[in-house]
């Protein structure tokens, strides 16, 4: 137990003149108190307790009858001198409460109290032990949150998951719409899809969490609060993906215009009559309003497919925003036409994702919309050109990349054509080969 450690690592400045005067006054007062003693039977410390302390520490010790009484007085002086010095330490720190650190500081400043260093060492060790208990709790809580992605994915996909999560990708690559649609105001479509690979299942579980936190019209589901990521502010989420573990169906659509109903393990895709986005055409169409809403959603789905391609790029470990930051300067060009605003809305959402990625890397989830405005309109063109370099050009229509005008019925037909089964089959095969490559 004897230890050469001296706690006087940061020696306190010598006592100020007023403090020395206080100590001198203390001892003078003690002398006067002793002179004024009339009855030695009055003790502030019980003699029996003091005897027990001596026996506990030193064993049996024979002493005259005056010694315990003598020691109780000495103990009182000791306690009061040390308390007074500790009080002056507390005052020097602008506190009116005496802490154990003040006592330690006093002991360090009084040379004759060096024998108490061992006591302070033991006390300090106990304090560190309590602090360790406090620190164990918080890392445990953090570990509970950090284990969520690990629990949701195999270890072989850990790097891949890291690439996905900061980019706020929220879309499923499997989208299928029948080429012919009945023309009614209320359309119910049953969309069973084949079971995707397990890797996508694990990823989508994470996407679902992000979708819930960003969506104003979040589905009323019971989600563990520990698994919900921190919500991103100032980002409206017009599109989201819904996935329930018990089903093998994926649906993507606008939050305002789509309602999901889980029936018999499948999702029923319901299109209401009036879409949330106004869609103006230069010429009148021979279709009903339901047809217009269908085409509007088809347009959105094409943009979603664009982001699906973005997911595929992320799978390869490429950092998309790095490409855009190098090639593209920060310039913004506004356009006032209705169709251009519509395109700009989708474009702004895509830019918001990039800004989110940048801020996510900096561990800052608050996005200033001025930063979104700083993003360039040509970023989308750069992204599209980069996609074209990797994908087969014939599988994607040119009207998507160059369309700045109002869509007419013939363009609608072309958009409808890009959603055929052969394209979906190519996408599935591409993902399958991708999965094989990772294996």
């Amino acid at each position, binding site marked *: 137990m004897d230890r050469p450690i001296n706690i006087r690592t940061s020696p306190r400045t010598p006592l100020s003149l007023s403090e020395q005067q206080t100590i001198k006054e203390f001892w003078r007062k003690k*002398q006067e108190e002793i002179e004024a003693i009339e009855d030695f039977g009055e*003790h502030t410390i019980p003699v029996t307790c003091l005897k027990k302390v001596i026996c506990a520490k*030193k064993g049996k010790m024979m*002493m*005259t009858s005056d*010694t315990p009484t003598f020691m109780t007085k000495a103990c009182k002086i000791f306690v009061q001198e*040390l308390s007074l010095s500790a009080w002056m330490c507390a005052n020097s720190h602008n506190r009116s409460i005496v802490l154990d650190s003040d006592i330690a500081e006093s002991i360090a400043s009084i040379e004759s109290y060096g024998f108490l260093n061992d006591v302070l060492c033991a006390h300090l060790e106990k304090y560190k032990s309590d602090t360790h208990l406090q620190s164990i709790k918080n890392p445990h809580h953090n570990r509970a949150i950090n284990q969520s992605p690990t629990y*949701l994915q195999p270890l072989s996909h850990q790097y891949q998951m890291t690439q996905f999560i900061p980019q706020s990708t929220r879309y499923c690559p499997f989208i299928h719409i029948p080429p012919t649609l009945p023309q009614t105001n209320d359309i119910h479509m049953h969309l069973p899809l084949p079971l995707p690979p397990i890797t996508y299942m694990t990823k989508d579980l994470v996407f679902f969490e992000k979708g819930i936190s960003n969506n104003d019209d979040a589905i009323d589901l019971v989600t563990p609060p520990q698994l919900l990521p921190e919500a991103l502010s100032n980002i409206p989420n017009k599109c989201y993906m819904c996935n329930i573990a018990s089903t093998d169906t994926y649906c993507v659509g606008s939050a305002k215009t789509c309602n999901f109903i889980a029936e018999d393990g499948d999702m029923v895709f319901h299109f209401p009559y009036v879409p949330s986005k106004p869609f103006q055409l230069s010429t009148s169409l021979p279709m009903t309003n339901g047809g217009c809403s269908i085409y509007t959603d088809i347009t959105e789905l094409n943009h979603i497919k664009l982001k699906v391609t973005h997911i595929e790029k992320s799978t390869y470990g490429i950092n998309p925003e790095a490409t855009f930051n190098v090639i593209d300067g920060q310039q913004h060009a506004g356009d006032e036409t209705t169709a251009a605003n519509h395109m700009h809305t989708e474009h702004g959402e895509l830019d918001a994702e990039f800004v989110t990625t940048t801020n996510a890397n900096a561990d800052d989830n608050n996005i200033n919309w001025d930063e979104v405005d700083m993003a360039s309109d040509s970023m989308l063109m750069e992204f599209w050109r980069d996609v074209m370099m990797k994908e087969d050009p014939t599988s994607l229509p040119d009207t998507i990349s160059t369309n700045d005008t109002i869509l007419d019925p013939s363009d609608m037909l072309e958009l409808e054509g890009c959603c055929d089964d052969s394209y979906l089959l190519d996408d599935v095969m591409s993902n399958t080969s991708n999965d094989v490559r990772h294996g």
Partner: protein
Amino acid sequence: MADHHHHHHHGHPPDGPGGAGDQLEVIKEQDRLLPIANVGRIMKQILPPNAKISKEAKETMQECVSEFISFVTGEASDKCHKEKRKTVNGDDVCCAFGALGFDDYVDPMRRYLHKYRELEGDRAASSRGGGGGPAGAADPASASAAAGPSPSAASAGHFMFGAAMDRPDNNSSAGARPF
């Protein structure tokens, strides 16, 4: 020493359930330190009325004053052994103060010892005349001793409650399933 110190904060109250070993440990722990209520009272006597004293400061003072007792009486006992004597007296303790560097204590305590012997001499003289003197002198000490353990027991209960608050939270489950 650390073991005793640790046990001091997590020990059961005297009436609590536990084996004989725990009971003995608690009793020994109480004997090792002066009562915290007395120590706190002595501290408050010297400080201004607006001063507050934290619980940790009182506990630290308990440890320090017990170490002070052990330090001084040990030195006095060593001096007695060197001089082939078996009984420690007040003069030995006064010399111990000087030898250990507590110079400020020497004069006041020598004065205390002198007055003690004067009054004891007077009381002894009156005691020869009457028979009630020694019995009367013993009463205050007994009363103080009887009052001593109670606050310590209450403090022990408070310590146990405080220890429970610092326990880490075991309810946070890391393996919660998402769906």
